[in-house]
């Protein structure tokens, strides 16, 4: 029993760390620009496919190189998507709906392009760590530990970036007070694009990280989008710390509900908890109005 519960907790922790990485990116865009990105899940798949292509190159044989090369590609991609597709809409009436629509269109375009280019079959990436820790009935794979630490590391790195770099601070400034940011001369448009680009990198990296465990499929991003969405709303849209807490709560909840009640209940329980939370605290765990 003890080992069983330990197993469940570990499973929850690992899921939680991955969810955290996914949710932080989504909450960031929403917090800064109030735009909802429906193509977020497709960016997840995009990350996986970029890594798949990179591994096809002869000189690339490890994840470090893949991360190093994929990050700038994703960054530039995200930046241009914001500049070309989202930014022009910001000036219009109902721009929030239109952003949802255009990103939904983009998701449709990307997912089906993946299917045509890479085929509908899933793609896998080489495992980045083999083996595991063993002890009696207990087993913890290196891969899971690696995913956990890389996710947490990614979030910490991102936190560092937000707190200690000029661009990071300007991102926070725009999120906390767009008018104030304008007054001190922060170029809002640039910050919007930069945040979009950063969140693209984060979710794309998540895609690479998870692809070796869960594979890449053309439509595989939708689950990620829904999970990230639930977690951001749960934690409070725009609140990065709230997103972190929510990610681990959701990870644990899923693990325990799946273990105790069965897998079909996880989604139902998840939404029930979300609805109750929102009924009591409409702004989510740590979100703020305004």
């Amino acid at each position: 029993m003890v080992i069983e519960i330990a197993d469940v907790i570990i499973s929850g922790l690992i899921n939680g760390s991955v969810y955290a990485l996914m949710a932080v990116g989504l909450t960031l865009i929403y917090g800064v620009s109030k735009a909802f990105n429906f193509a977020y899940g497709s960016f997840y798949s995009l990350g996986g496919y970029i890594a798949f292509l990179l591994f096809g190159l002869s000189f690339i044989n490890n994840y470090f190189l893949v991360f190093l090369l994929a990050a700038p590609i994703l960054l530039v991609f995200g930046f241009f998507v914001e500049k070309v597709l989202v930014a022009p809409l910001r000036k219009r009436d109902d721009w929030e709906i239109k952003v949802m629509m255009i990103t939904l269109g983009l998701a449709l375009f990307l997912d089906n392009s993946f299917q045509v280019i890479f085929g509908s079959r899933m793609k896998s990436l080489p495992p980045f760590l083999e083996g595991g820790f063993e002890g009696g009935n207990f087993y913890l794979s290196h891969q899971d530990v690696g995913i956990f630490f890389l996710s947490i590391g990614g979030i910490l790195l991102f936190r560092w970036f937000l707190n200690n770099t000029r661009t990071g601070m300007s991102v926070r400034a725009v999120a906390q007070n767009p008018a104030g940011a304008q007054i001190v001369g922060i170029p809002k448009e640039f910050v919007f694009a930069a945040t979009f680009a950063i969140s693209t990198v984060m979710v794309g990296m998540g895609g690479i990280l998870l692809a070796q465990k869960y594979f890449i499929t053309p439509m595989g991003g939708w689950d990620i989008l829904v999970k990230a969405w639930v977690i951001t709303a749960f934690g409070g849209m725009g609140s990065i710390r709230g997103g972190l807490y929510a990610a681990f709560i959701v990870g644990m909840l899923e693990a325990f509900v799946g273990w105790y009640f069965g897998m079909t209940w996880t989604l139902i329980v998840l939404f029930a908890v979300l609805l109750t939370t929102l009924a009591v605290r409409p702004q989510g765990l740590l979100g703020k109005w305004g």
Partner: protein
Amino acid sequence: MKKALGIFLILALALMPATALWAKDTIKVGVPLAMTGPYTDTGDNYWKGIKMAIDEINTAGGLLGKQLEPIRFDTQEFAPERVMQGADYLCGQIKVDSVHAGWAGWGQDVRAYGKYTAPFFADDGSQSAVDVFKQNKEEYKNIFQLTDTGINQAQSMFNVLMALPYEYPNKKAVIITADDAWGTEVGDTLEKNFKEKGWEVAMHELVPYGTNQWGPLLTQIRRIKPAIIHVEIVSAQEVITFFRQFMKRPTDSILSYGYSLVPREVVETMGKEADGLLGEVPTAMPTPEAPTPEAQAWLDKFETIWGHLPQAGSWAAYSGVKAWAAAVEAVGDEKNHDAVSDYIATNGYKGETGWWKWDEDHVMRAGGDVPIAHYQVQNGEMVAIFTDPPTKPYKNYQFQVPRWIKQ
């Protein structure tokens, strides 16, 4: 890119009515399959078989001297109105003379295509499709199922599990299935059978598609230590993640994957890693060695054309086309749909492995010359070890105790 697409689009639109006008001396064959969305890959499998049959007939001079012309229709995610639209388009609009679908809607297709007369071949493998058929056998006489129902397939899986030359350490089973019609049909049948045999079904879980974190379930499985784990989720991602997470700390259990072993990705992704997994394919060509010389020739031909062994459905879909073509030859008029359907229903079709006979419900029941083949992954490839019914070992291939079982 966009420009090219645009030109392609205009060309396609311009050519569509044009080809319809010129091609007077062709016989049109409807092929409604998933070409987009989550079922694309299974759609591809069927298409490979259908395409092969059509090309074969055309190079041999056509059917009644006319070339066959496939008309494809994208059934997407099988929403009811989409299935109906496919029938109205292919049968009502294009007026095809036969329809070859794979998975086509688990009963929705029977109603949609039953309204028309063109012989319709499906691979629903579902009791619900048969139930619809039984409601009005006269109206639905053009409907033919290429595979047996999920209930019978599950029965067959159970038979083979019990016939394995292997002594189970206990009588505990775990069943995990997808929460769709196929999964529940198989799961329920297996549970019933296990219980009748005095086994304990310690866990019977329905899981949604997209599940890839198996930690919580595996935790329970490791406590139960079942002798058999049956997983029935026809999607490679789920079954591979399950296997890999299971293998981190395996129990002494036979892993039976049923029909979920057949998405080609399972074997292609895992290779020898998958060694030991069990699975089945209804209306199947046993591999790697076919039962008859003709069948072997077919197998070789398929491999030359597509570069891999046939996947589930390819051969069934191929045979559907050939069975219809044979009936048309016999009747002598492809437009006489009723006569063609009657011919197929009464005479069946002589295929590569022997006779195909449809029963009174127009279901290609497993057995005889076209049994269900049961496979085990050995050396990274699916190897037929049993056929059923009747349950008997296949040729010289043998069951191997999976490497994770410590005895």
